[in-house]
């Protein structure tokens, strides 16, 4: 018996209490590890590759995470709540691609204002409790993250090279983690290289395949979740998956790929 344990409590109830406390402690430990220690966690997101890979009117704006609007989440971002943010000047980088006129004018104005502005003292974002985070995860198991707009991977690389690599990037109003973007771009390129359907497929023809990548980088299991109804199309999709060289970070992960003609 423990010291704090009332003496008149039956042993069975004491055992149950001990079990509950122990499992709760184990949960807390694992959640602490996942949220604060394991940094390579990736969220669910959707990525679309289209024929028009170059989108000339997308503005890429490098900004600090603390400048992001409160209602926006940084996709794939590391949790920086443990760090003490230092006050920094917000430097607006030149746009890699030509933005619409209004955006250019507004940004020019901002640039001038920012240069003259004093350094901004960053407020710490409100810390989410573990329970709140858990609740959110339970309530929204399938978080719909808007698709990454079509930006040439090289443009992203240039933007990253021109800026601080740790700072998130805002594209078309959405904020993304740099590392995530680069990984997605690389995976996009690989898919575009391997996916070659036969000619004459209708535009609404699509199939969904789920694969699990083992630790050797090979497709261990492949499951057709939604067939297109056209055998040659499904076969071409599976052949493309077998030809792909999947990047290292996909190992141990389940990928669900929707093939469009």
């Amino acid at each position, binding site marked *: 018996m423990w010291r704090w344990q009332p003496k008149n409590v039956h042993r069975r109830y004491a055992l149950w209490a001990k079990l509950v406390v122990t499992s709760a402690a184990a949960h807390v430990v694992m959640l602490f590890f996942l949220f604060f220690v394991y940094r390579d966690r990736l969220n669910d997101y959707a990525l679309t590759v289209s024929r028009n890979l170059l989108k000339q009117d997308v503005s890429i704006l490098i900004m600090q995470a603390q400048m992001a609007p409160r209602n926006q989440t940084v996709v794939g971002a590391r949790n920086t709540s443990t760090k003490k943010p230092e006050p920094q000047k917000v430097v607006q980088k030149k746009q890699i691609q030509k933005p619409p006129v209004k955006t250019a004018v507004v940004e020019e104005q901002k640039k001038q204002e920012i240069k003259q502005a004093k350094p901004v003292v960053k407020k710490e974002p409100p810390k989410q409790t573990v329970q709140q985070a858990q609740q959110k995860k339970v309530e929204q198991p399938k978080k719909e993250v808007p698709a990454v707009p079509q930006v040439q991977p090289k443009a992203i690389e240039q933007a990253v090279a021109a800026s601080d690599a740790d700072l998130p990037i805002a594209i078309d109003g959405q904020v993304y983690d740099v590392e995530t973007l680069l990984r997605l771009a690389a995976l996009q390129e690989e898919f575009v290289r391997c996916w070659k359907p036969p000619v004459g497929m209708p535009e609404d023809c699509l199939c969904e395949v789920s694969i699990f990548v083992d630790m050797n980088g090979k497709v261990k299991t492949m499951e057709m979740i939604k067939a297109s109804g056209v055998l040659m199309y499904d076969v071409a999709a599976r052949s493309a998956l077998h030809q792909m060289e999947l990047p290292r970070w996909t190992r141990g992960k389940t990928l669900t790929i929707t*093939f469009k003609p």
Partner: protein
Amino acid sequence: MHTKKVFFFLYLMIVCLPVHADEMQIQAVSTQHAKVPLVLAVVDGTKLEDVTSTLKRDLSFSAQFAVTVKSVATKPTKKDIKNLFADGFALAVFINEGKNKTIEWRVYDTLQGNMVKGKRYAKRGDVAIGWAHNITDSVWPVLTGQDGFFSTKIAYCKDVKHAKSKTTKYVCIADYDGSNEQILVDLPTVNVAPRWNKDVNNPLLFYSEYTNENVRLVAVDMHKRRRITSNFDGVNMLPAFSQDGKKVVYCASRGKGNCQLYYCDKAGFKQLTDNTGNNISPSLSDDDKSIFFCSDYQTGRPQVYVYHLPTGKIERITKGGFCASPSYCAQRKQIAYTKMVEGEMQVFVYDERKKNHTQLTTSLGSKEECAWSPCGNYLVYSVQQSGWSRIATFNMLTKQQRYLTSTKEHCSYPAWSPVYFQFPVVRA
């Protein structure tokens, strides 16, 4: 006891671990195309050479498959099929001679090593090419999800020059790709505008024959036996049949100078249009309630109209220009027609559901007399340019045009047959 507690706590930690599945959803859209590698394997293929070569040609026609022919000694096992995947073939089609005049075919998914579909085909007729086309018509829907069209024929008129600069038109039929041309009507007269009937067990071709008195409508079968079907004064031509083959619409002038539409069924013979223009090229819809035709009665220039049989109402489809040769497609719910653009006729389609017009062809040459394939994925028409006239097909899926006849021949008035039960072959 202490050790038991430690192991117990470790067990709890493992069991209570939150399950975190790393999942990602990705969409991939292609930027290039490639043919699907397919192996056509013949088991003991000494007797099936003609069938194999025709099958290969059929499967390669649409440029969606890269077909390789292989000869094998025995029927395949699952391991053999999976080895084909290792060799780079995504699909396999096996054929072999069966018992009682049959040919067995099987389609395999080489990755999984299982059979997708198989069938025993009972030979129809005595032409090996016909068997191959029939087999392709069965295999095609399994591979592509589209209806087959390989057992069809295209009829057209070919100019033939005789002595004393006399030119007549023969009626010829050929396979869907222009091969195996056969002359069906070789009389020393001008024969134009062939049209196929819809009876799948009895292929008949209707055409108009010029005589000294009139232009009469004649039907001919594959044994070249002819029968006059409409012999009114003036012009009798361009019949269009209903799906059941029991109703027909055609145009006739009956000696009055301009053509009107006439409807014939069990109930009798009825005149549909009565105006001062020329009403020609009728085409029935799949429900047999609408007739699309060409007329110049309103504007003086030919336009495409639709006649609603239950109400007798006529509605105009095209707005302006010079339009001709409407042809209805049941699969697509579209009407193909030709329209003058910058001095040349080009092919357009009108979508019945979306109510919009789309131009299909832009190449040089005047396109005339367009007709749909039974599957709805191809159009056939004649192209006239620089003194020659050729028959061409247009692939609706790939937007590619392909010529069936050469520039040395003058061919016109193409018509695409339905899929007959037995492959039509002209017999003398």
